[in-house]
């Protein structure tokens, strides 16, 4: 009899002991960080986030089977609140995992954004957390939805025969079609592909500056940016992850974002014109990996 009573009493006490534990674990889950897509084990407490930004050459939509025209790693250090943009010339000759050597832009065609992310990781040793991809139409659409972007164009150029970019030097607001043409222009610049990828990085900084200015006046403007990105781009982020990344982006001053293009040398592989990444790039990768900023 007493034994049965004790068992019942133990059960009652046991339940009361377990209930708070359930509550505790629930609370822990609710506050647990929500980042982590490219690698499931991503830990935001490391204080650095790296995103691969891809511009593909598809005229419409964002198909996997296209070439990457723009390849950039965006880094944010959440402790120092500094960032960096590392620009890859699209003709960089690299080893694509499982595919052998080729131009880096082919990785997208051969295995989609995931293979391009793995290629960039293999080249730099930087662990990427997310990727985001946009095509010609999408990029133009984003800039248009955001009502233009203020850019400082370094040189007057006329690229009518190629990208269609015709701009005079100086600070100006570019509309969607102008921003796309400028981001694609290379033939009118002596640096060619290298100048183009640097201009793309400049444009990313200009967009971030606009985001920061708008959200400083009205924080809810971030939702317009998220909506524009969702409408025109492909990405591997959940809505809440995008929200948190967006918040981070609003907190960084554009002057604290370094825009660096990989040092390269021009060359040929067979009949193909390529660029070889300089061995000096290793120190840039290392600095970016360690600091999350450039």
């Amino acid at each position, binding site marked *: *009899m*007493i034994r*049965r*009573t004790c068992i*019942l*009493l133990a059960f*009652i*006490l046991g339940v009361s002991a377990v209930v708070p534990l359930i509550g505790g674990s629930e609370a822990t889950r*609710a*506050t647990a960080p929500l980042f982590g897509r490219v690698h499931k084990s991503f830990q935001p407490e490391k204080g650095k986030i790296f995103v691969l930004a891809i511009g593909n050459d598809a005229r419409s939509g964002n198909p996997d089977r296209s070439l990457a025209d723009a390849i950039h790693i965006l880094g944010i250090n*959440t402790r120092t*609140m500094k960032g960096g943009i590392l620009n890859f010339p699209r003709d960089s000759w690299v080893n694509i995992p499982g595919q052998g050597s080729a131009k880096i832009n082919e990785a997208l065609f051969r295995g989609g954004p995931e293979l391009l992310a793995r290629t960039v990781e293999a080249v730099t040793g930087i662990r990427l957390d997310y990727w985001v991809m946009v095509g010609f139409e999408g990029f133009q659409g984003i800039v248009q*939805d955001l009502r233009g972007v203020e850019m400082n164009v370094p040189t007057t150029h006329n690229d009518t025969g190629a990208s269609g970019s015709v701009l005079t030097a100086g600070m100006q607001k570019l509309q969607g079609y102008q921003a796309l043409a400028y981001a694609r222009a290379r033939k009118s610049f002596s640096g060619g592909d290298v100048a183009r990828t640097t201009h793309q990085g400049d444009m990313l900084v200009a967009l971030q500056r606009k985001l920061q200015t708008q959200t400083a006046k*009205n*924080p*809810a*403007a*971030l*939702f*317009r*940016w*998220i*909506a524009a990105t969702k409408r025109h781009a492909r990405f591997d982020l959940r*809505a*809440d992850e995008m*929200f*948190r990344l967006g*918040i*981070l982006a*609003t*907190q960084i001053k554009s002057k604290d974002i370094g825009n660096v293009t990989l040092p390269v040398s021009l060359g040929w592989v067979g009949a193909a014109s390529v660029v070889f990444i300089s061995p000096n790039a290793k120190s840039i990768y290392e600095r970016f990996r360690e600091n999350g900023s450039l």
Partner: protein
Amino acid sequence: MPDQKRTWILIVAAVAVVLAVATTIALVELPGQRIGIGREGGRPGETALPDLPQATWEMSVHASGVEGKLTGAEKKALQRQRPELRVLVKRVYDSLFIHPNRLADTLKENFSEPAAVSLRRAGAGADEAGRVATTLRRATIGIQATGGARMAVASVTVHADGDGSDQPVVHRSALWLERARGDWKVVAFDVRQGPLPEPSGDKKGDETSKQRGKGKKPNRKSP
């Protein structure tokens, strides 16, 4: 039958003993927290304080990030979240300025852990209860219209007087909010606090002040 009856008597007796012991422990261990009743119904730990004038909340809630018209479902989702967000914002700023002894509970219940830690470090708000009078309390809450109203941001301005400061203080902040499992949580915030400029004075002092109230630097915190 008598055996079964005895068993139940024993169980009831045991439960009664457990409850009695638990109640006794609670009363013995928490005597200090039962002293005094604060304003607005009061809470344990609050002492009665003279009422200081507090500004009426000016609050607006609207949909953000949407081009064109909202669907019926989006409108409903927004309507459902409006009251909860209003209550949360009021609670956070009451805890910051009027009842700082409630701040710990508010941070625990309404903030993500990193955001709570950051807000503590920011040192915004009042140091002691009953010493701050607010002359303006304004909040604009934007809710992301699409995706089931799961994200929001509240832009808040509070003008406060007192708390040992010689000059009125202007506090501007943004609370970034996420809704998960039905509850809203502040996941990040951005606070700027500094001396309130004279009404006819230089407006720059308000927006670009490098001095926070009580001689501290302005804070900008991230998630």
